[in-house]
């Protein structure tokens, strides 16, 4: 077998500011969606476009990793199926060793840099800002739209405010988080975002749908 000892230098990699500055052109992945607006809408959707998405991985049993991440984020990393908000950061649990942090896009570069400066040992930080987008679904029939879209039990007794689940959404997947009794946040892949938009409009048509931009 091989005698090569792997040398892991987690900080030795190229980090770029992926956020487009004010004078460069940027388009949301939903730029081509044609939104219908009903005058008596009971379901509303909006996109939090150009958010920063950072995926952080590390072992929850590694105390130095957990302490370092808590120091940078200003909060402990959340446990199973939960989320925390800390200042401009929203931290979601994705799997036992994976967390998704979202924030305004301009803050992503600073966070990525600070995580790399603070963390040591075996960890991973990936900027996925361009790969996914955030949608917020609200209104008195928002839950009914999700009943048609996900097979997860989203009744408030099983899916309380702040809980996060990765599940199927129609024929794609999403990271679903409850913001309020009738307010939900979806993290969807950018290449599926027009499909998700079309699905939501179709599912919400009977209740009246309006896009909040």
């Amino acid at each position, binding site marked *: 077998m091989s005698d090569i000892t792997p040398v892991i230098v987690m900080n030795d990699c190229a980090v770029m500011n992926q956020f487009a500055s004010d004078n460069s052109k940027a388009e949301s992945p939903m730029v081509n969606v044609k939104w219908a607006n009903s005058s008596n809408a009971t379901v509303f959707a909006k996109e939090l476009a150009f958010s920063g998405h950072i995926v952080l991985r590390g072992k929850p049993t590694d105390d130095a990793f957990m302490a370092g991440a808590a120091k940078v984020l200003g909060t402990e990393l959340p446990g199973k*199926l939960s989320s925390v908000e800390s200042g401009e950061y929203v931290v979601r649990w994705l*799997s*036992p060793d*994976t967390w998704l942090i979202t924030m305004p896009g301009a803050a992503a570069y600073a966070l990525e840099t600070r995580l790399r400066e603070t963390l040591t040992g075996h960890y991973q930080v990936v900027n996925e800002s361009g790969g996914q987008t955030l949608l917020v679904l609200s209104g008195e029939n928002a839950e009914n739209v999700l009943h048609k879209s996900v*097979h997860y039990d989203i009744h408030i007794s099983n899916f309380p405010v702040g809980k996060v689940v990765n*599940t*199927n959404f129609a024929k794609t997947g999403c990271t679903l988080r409850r913001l309020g009794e009738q307010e939900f946040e979806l993290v969807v892949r950018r290449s599926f975002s027009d499909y998700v938009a079309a699905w939501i409009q179709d599912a919400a048509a009977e209740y009246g749908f309006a896009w909040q931009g």
Partner: protein
Amino acid sequence: MLHIYCPHCCEYREEEEFHCKGQAHIARPLDPDNCSEQEWANFIFFRKNTKGQHQELWHHSAGCGKFFNVSRNTITYKIEQSYLLGTAPQPVLDVNKEGKA
């Protein structure tokens, strides 16, 4: 539709979120450079076709993305238990052999 317990999410989820990855507990030959072709072929190709209790590897692909093992009855489809990789399934009391469970 199976209702499967993910030991990482600690919740029951719909089968649609999972993928079955075949038989579990397949040991890789410890010294692949020096094992026989038969040993290697057994590792790569040959699988049991169990009627009854079967241990399988499942992937929570739409959820946490982690792998875990499932003990499933191939006749009734009943899932007896889900357990983490690197652990053995809990012995299940056979009602027919040992009286009342």
